[in-house]
């Protein structure tokens, strides 16, 4: 158990360092953490399934705007871990993952305030051409991040799993029902956030096409995406000429 808790702590730290050192290459998303947590806890398949469900719920959780208030990396990791340990589904993952994601984001805010102070030291190093010093500050921030994400996750999993299991076992039927409804509604919030990024009036027709194609015909995601690519291609060809004309007018 202690080894598993340590590995899960490392996964949570990885999700934080994914932004810091891996250029936001998306290791923090539940699809990936679900797989990794599943690997650690010995049920990869179930981990991937719960990861997929959490991914839907947090589909709109981007780094911008309102949704930046959620740390889906640690939330997803701890949520999936508890769901697997208790043998339950995504509703347990979201029940424990959501508060964690809010708490960790708060801690992140404190961290970024603290790092501000270190920048003045970096200024001094820059003036003295102390490149090694600047590099050290840059990387020590990442090391601090590792510590700040590893230990809370480790202790939550190591000390909390017993308590969580007891709580989950004693949940009355009506609470489970309510949580199920919430977890099946939450993806709507995610998709609404996505629409906020993408939606324009002139895109509404394509939104309708996507919905209807899936709801009535049962075509899968890949097929509909390819149809969308074809439509986008046609629209591009239709409009490219007029853009070119404008370009010539400009010159």
């Amino acid at each position, binding site marked *: 158990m202690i080894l598993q808790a340590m590995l899960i702590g490392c996964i949570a730290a990885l999700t934080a360092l994914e*932004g*810091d050192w891996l*250029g*936001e*290459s998306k290791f923090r998303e539940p699809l*990936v953490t*679900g*797989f990794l947590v599943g690997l650690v806890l010995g049920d990869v398949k179930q981990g*991937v*399934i719960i990861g*997929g*469900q959490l*991914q*839907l719920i947090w*589909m709109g959780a*981007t780094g911008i705007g309102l949704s930046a208030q959620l740390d889906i990396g640690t939330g997803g990791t701890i949520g999936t871990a508890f769901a697997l340990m208790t043998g339950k589904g995504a509703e347990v993952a979201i029940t424990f993952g959501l508060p964690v994601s809010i708490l960790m984001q708060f801690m992140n805010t404190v961290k970024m*305030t603290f*790092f*501000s102070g270190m*920048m003045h030291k*970096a*200024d001094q190093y820059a*003036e*003295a*051409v102390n*490149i090694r010093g*600047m590099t050290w500050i*840059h990387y020590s*921030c990442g090391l601090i991040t590792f510590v700040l994400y590893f230990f809370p996750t480790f202790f939550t999993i190591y000390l909390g799993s017993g308590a969580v299991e007891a709580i989950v076992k004693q949940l009355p039927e009506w609470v489970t*029902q309510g*949580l199920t*409804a*919430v977890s099946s*509604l939450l993806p*709507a*919030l995610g*998709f*609404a956030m*996505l*629409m906020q*990024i*993408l939606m324009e009036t002139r895109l509404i027709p394509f*939104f*309708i096409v*996507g*919905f209807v*194609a*899936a*709801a009535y015909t049962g075509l*899968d*995601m*890949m097929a*509909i*995406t390819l149809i969308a690519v074809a*439509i*986008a291609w046609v*629209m591009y060809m239709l409009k490219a000429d007029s*853009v070119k004309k*404008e370009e010539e007018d*400009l010159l």
Partner: protein
Amino acid sequence: MSKDKNFVNKEYNITKRDFRKVFWRSFTLLGSYNFERMEALGFDYSMMPVLKKIYGDDKQRLAEALRRHMEAFNMTVAPSTFVMGISIAMEEKYEKDPSFDVNSINAIKLALMGPLSGIGDTFFWGIFRILAAAIGVSFALKGNIIAPFVFLIMFNVPHFLVRYFGLFIGYRNGNDFLTKIEQSGQMSLFTYCAGIVGITAVGCMIATQIAVSSPLQFTISGNKIVIQEYLDQIMPQLLPLIATLVVYYCLKKKVKVGYIMAGIIIGFICGVLGILA
């Protein structure tokens, strides 16, 4: 500019290897993110290999350059190398001609932050991430363990390409490239077409990935009435669509987070009462 394969700029002895260093270092752009300077130290750190070559032993001007890039900087990370490329080209100009307006370097960086972040957010958060995640989820829900790999590869191929070539394009064509692409309307057409794919995928996911339904049923004079059957007759997946549109409307009206929490509680109560599941 040198045609030599391994040199990006022979005059300063800057090789492709140096540019590759900048590319790899750019992955740590957020490494010391903070409220005061945001990505400044990460930007500075990424530029170091090339700055050292440009200013060589001129410690004072190197110090100036290092200090210059410690000014606040913040943008979507994937296309940030484009700005690094432009900055490198301008640093070279300044090294050669000290009368070159050095403030313009940071001015350009500031000017590019907004528009490039806007484009970057649309493509990387809005489109590549959604499509990759949507395809990944469709594998994941079937319990197929290739899901995370499909997701990571689909997202990161365009990510790495933009990050790598952005550096060179920024260096070689810099400003011309952006102004041309913006003036000609190419970019907005391209964004529009990418938006078509993105929004179609969102429409599709609303229909397939939101599981909300109503278990409500009555018995009226011996006839069992199942609400969900009626809803399906109006339109399949009606509840997911309504739920999403209501939330979208609220978000657009910029309602307070509290209302969204209230919505979640209402959802919970509906679940308890057996209206929704």
